[in-house]
């Protein structure tokens, strides 16, 4: 060990190190600091033994305690499921048409349904359920297949025009491009425009009205108010699924357009189907 040297100016010991004549003072650290430091090293080693730590070629060392972040999440979920078990049972037994009267259960169903909706439905209907061209807006009061709770549950369970569920809603509009002449299509479109707008060609629309009665009214109804039994949209209201201007209407008449929805009854649990239906019913348009 080096000899003791004292800095004359301050009277403090130096470490004996000197750089270009500059000496380093030695104000010693408390020894317990050093021990604390050693303790942290020991702790660190123990920690890497107990918990997942060292990266390996695939994955990492598992740690002797067998802890994993995934396991923690699984536990949390199981715990929540346990806490909600009573609510789930109640939801499965509930008469869904009167669900809103049971405030607590309804709140649970709507919250759970919201989570299901954002995970499964928002891709088409939008995260705010406002839909998009071709994907119905679920916030408004216009329904293709009905907006009562039981009707919503049916649509969610069986879906629309899918190949997998024989009970899926099914209807198909013919493509009138093969049936109508260009003029007939134009006249029909003009009639459709006249139903919800004040700017139209009256003579053309009158001609279209006759064509409509002969060809379309069977499904869409004599006054074009639609028919939910066959999913025929109401053509006299302000809402258009594929657009309400002449161009969009012409395309729809000529080619016929309709969407497809999966049968969620085959993919979701019964409680999730009920929950997401309750959520959709409570978005504003529920009947």
């Amino acid at each position: 060990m080096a000899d003791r040297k004292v800095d004359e100016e301050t009277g403090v010991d130096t470490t004996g190190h000197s750089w270009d004549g500059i000496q380093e003072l030695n104000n010693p650290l408390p020894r317990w600091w050093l021990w604390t430091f050693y303790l942290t090293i020991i702790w660190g080693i123990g920690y890497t033994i107990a918990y997942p730590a060292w990266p390996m070629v695939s994955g990492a060392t598992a740690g002797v305690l067998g802890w994993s972040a995934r396991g923690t999440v699984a536990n949390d979920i199981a715990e929540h499921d346990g806490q909600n078990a009573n609510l789930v049972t109640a939801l499965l037994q509930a008469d869904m048409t009167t669900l809103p009267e049971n405030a607590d259960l309804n709140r649970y169903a709507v919250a759970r349904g919201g989570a299901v909706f954002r995970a499964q439905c928002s891709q088409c209907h939008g995260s705010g359920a406002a839909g998009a061209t071709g994907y119905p807006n679920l916030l408004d009061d216009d329904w293709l297949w009905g907006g009562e709770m039981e009707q919503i549950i049916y649509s969610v369970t069986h879906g629309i025009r899918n190949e997998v569920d024989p009970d899926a809603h099914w209807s198909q509009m013919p493509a009138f491009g093969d049936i109508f002449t260009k003029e007939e299509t134009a006249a029909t479109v003009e009639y459709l425009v006249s139903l919800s707008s004040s700017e139209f060609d009256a003579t053309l629309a009158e001609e279209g009205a006759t064509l409509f009665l002969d060809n379309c009214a069977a499904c869409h109804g004599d006054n074009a108010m639609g028919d939910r039994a066959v999913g025929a949209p109401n053509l006299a209201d302000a809402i258009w699924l594929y657009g309400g201007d002449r161009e969009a209407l012409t395309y729809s008449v000529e080619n016929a357009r309709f969407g497809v929805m999966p049968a969620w009854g085959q993919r979701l649990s019964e409680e999730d189907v009920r929950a997401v239906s309750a959520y959709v019913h409570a978005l504003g348009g529920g009947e």
Partner: protein
Amino acid sequence: MAHEPAPSLYAAQEPVFPRKVKGFYRTFKWWIMAVTLGIYYLTPWIRWDRGPNLPDQAVLVDMANRRFYFFWIEIWSHEFYFVAGLLIMAGLGLFLFTSALGRVWCGYTCPQTVWTDLFILVERWIEGDRNARVRLWKGKWTARKWRLRITKWTIWLVIAMATGGAWVFYFADAPTLLRDLVTLSAHPAANITILILTLTTFIFGGFMREQVCIYMCPWPRIQAAMMDPDTITVAYREWRGEPRGKKRDGTAGDCIDCMACVNVCPVGIDIRDGQQMECITCALCIDACDDVMARIGKPRGLIDYLALSDEEAERAGAQPRPLWQHVLRLRTIIYTAMWAAIGLGLVYALFIRSDIELTVSPVRNPTFVLQSDGSIRNIYDVRLRNKLGDDRQFHLSLISDDILRIELEGLGRELAIDVPANETILQRVYVTARPQDPAASRNSTPLRLWVEDLGSGDKASWDTIFNGRESQ
């Protein structure tokens, strides 16, 4: 010293054996200890009636339900700014006191000081005063030493456990939790908290003591920024005391070098060396020195609270400036003003607070909904809070210069909502403008939602806007 080895880079802790002292500051400190510890240990046991649905503990931090109860005040998590404000006030208060009176926090009220003081009291009671303790420390580990040590440690442990125990009572109903603790059925979080606080109190108060202040606590470093020569602090009147010594020939100063001030110092320093980072300004050396001065017939205050800016005047034999001139200066006035401004703001916020509340978040995805008859609907998520101890029925209404219609999800035009006691309810609210109404086409229309408790007449409102077709 050529062949003396260089000292180690690490130093062992020097044991400190503070001697017993009597005097004004010591008595004052006993009182402060009694009051602060009394508040700490007893507060959770005070009861406060809030009605059947709310806890009856006067001071309670309810983590699970995110509520803080303080006597008649109840703070919800969204009002956490009250706590933030109080913390800022505590910080500013600390700045104020430090700039005026130095490390009074350290010397009188810091838990580290108070519990160390208490532990030293126990130590003195079991093992005797300074000299006896030094002897015991140096002596062999005889049966007597073991007995004294174990007694002391046991009492320390009991105090430490009570300290940790008192802490958890602030977070749960105290009588229930005590019963659970005794029957060993308390939540693990409570037991772990008690264990940690017991160990820290035991180790910090019993063994670490001044080491905590010197090496662990950030406050001594920060407080230097608040002090200046006008700050009142504990100091030695070197111009009066030096040259120190026992000589009686008239050349000596007042300090008789009896080491009383050093022997009582809980951090083991000599205040006569001048201001030191280690000094917590506990003022015990003042008491010790005053006692000596009284015995040798000299005026008190060789060691005293004084402002360093007075040194020059005092050296010249003049009187120091009065205390208030040191304390009242721009810096302390600014700290006081800031402290008071925040305090007044908080009190004001507290008084305008209503027992019922609503917050409205307009649903902006989408900005509006077109209904089949062409009318325009806006959706609002309205949170209704009932801070009262019983269930209430809230009535919702809308005020606007334009024609707008309000409906509630699930309730339609029935605008009364039941909100259970101490809860928040989320209600979806629909506001609709008919196609021919101006609000339907306009970009935005201001409106105000009111909530009223029909029973008590309490009201609250929220301003928001209605988006028409042009907002797209």
